Structure formats: structure tokens, C-alpha cells
């Protein structure tokens, strides 16, 4: 079965380790670093969790369920980590500024049925990653702030 292309109005949740959360000099979290969206050498696509998979009318509930799904996966978020939340269309639009054409596909994984793959991500430049961290994918929530 071909992976389903996700609706541009839907939201993606990406796990952000504590070291990629942007802080001020006192350690208060003020955002995420663009490096939170950088691929590792062995990754073919950027991973995220599709919030609307959980099919709740309330967007916030979908995001919370997505975070719970990430917690149940092999990822095992640490106490001090967080999650970046962004809408698909604005993310794709920002990536087009560096001519990166991003396809966002629902590709379930054994440990996360709501897993989404952002394909074509290798073409996204560092400056665009930083812009995503500022705007399109800049909304964040701390793991500690989401109830179990």
C-alpha cells in the first residue's frame, strides 16, 4: 500500500532533545534550535508524529495524544526534553525557499502508528532549519508540562 500524503492543514509533532531546546542564559526554554530538525547521516527522512491521526476535534488533544504516542515508542523522551509543533503547509512553504520540495507521508512504524516521514529533507539548508525553528515549527511544549 502506498503511504498516504498528509493534509497541509494538519500538524506534526517532533521530539526535541534537551540539548536542542533554545534557552536563555538562565536555562529558561525560549524555543528550539534549527539543529533540532537536522538529519543524522544515516537518516533518509525526518521523523515526526502526525497529530490528526488521533482524530479528535480538538487540536490540543491530538497533540497531547501524539506526545503520548512518542513516549510509548522506542524514543523514550527524557524529563528535560520537549516537542516542536508545526502545521504541514507552512513547513513545506518555508522549505520551498531553498528549493526543497518536501513530501509529508504517513508511514506507520512498529512502535508508532502515527509516524510521519518528511521526505526530501536533505535539501533543506541550515538557515531554513533555523527559520522553521523560529516560525513554522517553532511552537514548543516541554515534556514535563504534558500529563502522563
Amino acid at each position, binding site marked *: 500500500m502506498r503511504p498516504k500524503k498528509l493534509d497541509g492543514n494538519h500538524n506534526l509533532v517532533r521530539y526535541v*532533545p*534537551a*540539548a*536542542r*531546546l*533554545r*534557552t*536563555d*542564559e*538562565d*536555562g529558561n526554554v*525560549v*524555543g528550539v*534550535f*534549527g*539543529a533540532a530538525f*537536522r538529519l*543524522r547521516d544515516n537518516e533518509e527522512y525526518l521523523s515526526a508524529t502526525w497529530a490528526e491521526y488521533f482524530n479528535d476535534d480538538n487540536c490540543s488533544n491530538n497533540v497531547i495524544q501524539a506526545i503520548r504516542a512518542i513516549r510509548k515508542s522506542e524514543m523514550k523522551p*527524557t*524529563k*528535560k*526534553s520537549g516537542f516542536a509543533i508545526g502545521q504541514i503547509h507552512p513547513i513545506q512553504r518555508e522549505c520551498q525557499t531553498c528549493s526543497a520540495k518536501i513530501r509529508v507521508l504517513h508511514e506507520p512504524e512498529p512502535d508508532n502508528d502515527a509516524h510521519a516521514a518528511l521526505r526530501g529533507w536533505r535539501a533543506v539548508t*541550515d*538557515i531554513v532549519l*533555523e*527559520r522553521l525553528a*523560529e516560525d513554522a515549527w517553532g511552537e514548543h511544549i516541554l515534556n514535563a508540562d504534558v500529563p502522563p
Partner: protein
Amino acid sequence: MSQLESLKPNLLYAGFSSSTSVGVASHALAKARKAIDEPRNAVIQSRVIPMLDEISNTPSHKALPEKLYDALASFKIRTAGVARYLDSAWRAKFFAGLDRLLDVEAWEIGDSPPTDDSFSTLLRALILLRPERPPGLGASHDGKLLAAWTVGRDRLTLECLKNDRVLWIVSCSADGEPERAAGEVHISRLSDVLAPYNPNQRWFQHAPQEARRQS
């Protein structure tokens, strides 16, 4: 003799280079040391202990908490070495930032701890820029340190590469219009390339409380 020789490759067996199994590797090394400490094994002590020492002293075989501890100690010692350039209150905040960044509870299995090369670049850049406010610290998955100053929506990010080179990214508003710029330079040119964005007034000075709350 052949059994003794074969011990070393066994201890180096797959996984010792993998970050997910470094804890197992350390445990195996400790067990091996305990076994050969038995008096009856005196003969092999002289041959095996040097091999174990060699293995456990190889950085890639250290457990993650040990790597983070070593990195933290190394970074603080290096900073102390240039203490005369840094105000003591500034240094205390910077150390607190390093403590937070290299806290094992906050660290991700699979990430490389920040490298000495990257820290050298960061430290030299800070001595050259002399910001009144220390940066917020972060790290990329491959061990590059990130330094951030944020005031409202104005952001300056430095990614510290090796050999005193930095990737800088600026995002700010100029005359009400958003402006963004980025580049890679040697730290000796960093002040010059940032000058048009007035970093001292925009980011490096202690900002009014109100602006900080909005960030």
C-alpha cells in the same frame, strides 16, 4: 597464551563502539578486572591488565555518563585557564549553563558529547565578542556546541565548528522589516560580520526585563 590473546578482541566485541551498549561494556570490563584480581590468577594479571587498561582508556569505549563528566571537567578547566578575561559572575552563569547542558538526565543516547574542538572555538569566540550576557547553550547531535542569544523575536545563533570557525545565523527586525542572514567565518571576523546587526545593544547587553519576558 592464545586464550589470553583472544580476550582483547572479545572485549572489543561489537557494541563497545555503540553508544547504546557502552554501559554493558563498562560492566563487562569491571567484571573482567574483578576476576583477574583473584590471587590464583596472578600469572595472567601481568598480561591481561594492560590490555584492559588500554581498552578502558580508549574514549569511544567509555560509558556516556563518563564521557559527559570528562567533557564537563575539560570545558571548565579550559575556561578557568582564561579566567582573567571573564568576569566571575559571568563565569558562574556560563558554568551553570554547561552543567545543564551536560547533565546525563538531559542527554540523548546516540548523541555525541560536544567535542573539545568545538568548545575551543566557543571559548575563543566569547573572549573576542565579550558579551555581557552569557549565551544559552545547546549541542547538535554530532557534538557541535550551539550558543544562542534571544531577545523577543531577535535571535543570534552560533554553531561552533572546529579550527575556530563558526556558522552564524541572525534573525531580527530592522526598521520593522524582518531580516535574516547567515554565514560561516573564522572567529577573528565574527565581530565584523555581526556589526551591522549591532549585537552589543541588541543581544549582548542585559536586556530590560520586559523584552526578556517576551522572548
